[in-house]
């Protein structure tokens, strides 16, 4: 994960970076720019996951930078960190496409609450009272867990095979050979759900959706490693799993990140995968391919 910090004041860039760390985002890489023009170029060169920008800057303001980014089709999550936090400014920021506006002076808590939905993790307390650009972040509801039947029907349709599901135990993440994990976010980029396939299910589902023979997933199980094709196919299954959450009245979710078995997971993703409460753990059998495990956690 990478954050771009844009401010003409070196002192304020240092304070912003320090506050990011204090808010618990110490795993985020930071790149810096000194004004809106440099910031615009840095977004193209560095592809950050979030931009934190001052408003008032020489050469090009943060507001102009945001407008230029959106006009050029760049939809990178963008938040202002500015001394001007009036309602007018918040409305203007939201209308231009900013996710939030953090007013100076700020605290690590304000950072945690505003950034956790985008970056995940952080040390945020309940973000209920955080005033973001224009509205409150706690507006929309959480996603419901899908039913066993919904999971079975989706996998069966997708893989073109009979699929059996039965109550199971939580799918472990980490270790070898690891599990495939999909992280799903809502349209405001809040982490909203995770789906975990154990290694065997990732191999079987990846082989079945790619019309590969059962031998392909058996070979992967023997090697303890997924081929590039199986990895890509497993990601595609995780991508389509998003439809499980997209039911009437629930926030619209999409796959934000797919982690292949063995890949290092973000700490907040690990936490989400192992969370108790709103989760569904299933044993899955894909006809002719084999058995595996699947977990769904809504956040």
């Amino acid at each position, binding site marked *: 994960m990478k954050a771009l910090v844009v401010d*003409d004041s*070196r*002192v304020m860039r*240092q*304070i912003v970076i320090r506050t990011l760390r204090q808010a618990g985002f110490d795993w985020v890489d930071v790149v810096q720019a000194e004004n809106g023009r440099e910031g615009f170029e840095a977004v193209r060169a560095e592809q950050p996951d979030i931009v934190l920008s001052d408003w*008032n800057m020489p050469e090009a303001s943060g507001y102009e930078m945001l407008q230029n980014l959106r006009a050029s089709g760049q939809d990178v999550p963008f938040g202002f960190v500015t*001394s*001007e*936090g009036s309602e007018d400014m918040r409305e203007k920021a939201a209308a231009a496409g900013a996710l939030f506006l953090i007013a*100076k002076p700020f605290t690590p808590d304000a950072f945690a609450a505003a950034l956790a939905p985008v970056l995940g993790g952080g040390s945020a307390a309940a973000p209920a009272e955080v005033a973001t650009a224009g509205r409150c972040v706690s507006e929309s509801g959480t996603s419901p867990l899908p039913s066993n039947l919904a999971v079975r029907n989706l996998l069966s349709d997708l893989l073109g095979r009979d699929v059996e599901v039965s109550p199971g135990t939580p799918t472990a993440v980490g270790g070898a050979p690891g599990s495939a994990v999909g992280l799903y976010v809502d349209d405001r980029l809040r982490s909203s759900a995770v789906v975990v396939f154990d290694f065997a299910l990732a191999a079987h589902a990846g082989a079945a959706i790619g019309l590969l023979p059962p031998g392909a997933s058996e070979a992967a199980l023997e090697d303890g490693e997924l081929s590039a094709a199986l990895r890509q196919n497993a990601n595609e299954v995780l991508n389509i799993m998003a439809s499980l959450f997209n039911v009437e009245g629930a926030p619209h979710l999409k796959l934000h990140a797919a982690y292949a078995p063995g890949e290092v997971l973000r700490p907040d993703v690990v936490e989400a995968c192992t969370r108790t409460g709103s989760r569904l753990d299933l044993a899955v059998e894909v006809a002719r391919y084999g058995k595996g495990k699947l977990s769904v956690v809504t956040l």
Partner: protein
Amino acid sequence: MSQDVVELEGLEPDAVEDEALAQIVDQMWESYFAASEPFLPSFEPLEVTGDVLCASVGITGARPGLVTVTVPRAAGRSLAAVLLSEDGDLDDEDVYDALGEVANIIGGNVKALVPDAGALGLPAIAAAPPLPRTGSRCAARLDAVWQGHPVSFVVWLAGSAATAPATEV
């Protein structure tokens, strides 16, 4: 219009008062200087003299304003060291930058209180407080002592028709 009425109008609360300025400064101190020595407000105006630095930011709009922060140069250096969390050699640029950012934070928050405000300017640093524009009055002032140094915050606002010219400069 009698003299009495003029005096009463002069007592009307302005958009920015001492109390509001004190709150803004307090919040900033809490956020960025809490780990340093306490900030002790003074009930008497303090004269900042000698080798001083003054950061100011302008506010445009129906009632143009100016927010100034004046400190002895040595205090400016200490402010920068706290903000940057660096005790080593700070160059003048860092000191000007830090003081400018303090003025910017106060200015942004003051601007939110001024009706029909336009834009906030970029901070300017000088070796003496700037002369406020003709017709401006000192709407709010806060003097304090920090690390044994006087620190002075002043908000100048152009007088509106409803305010008395008593303290005009």
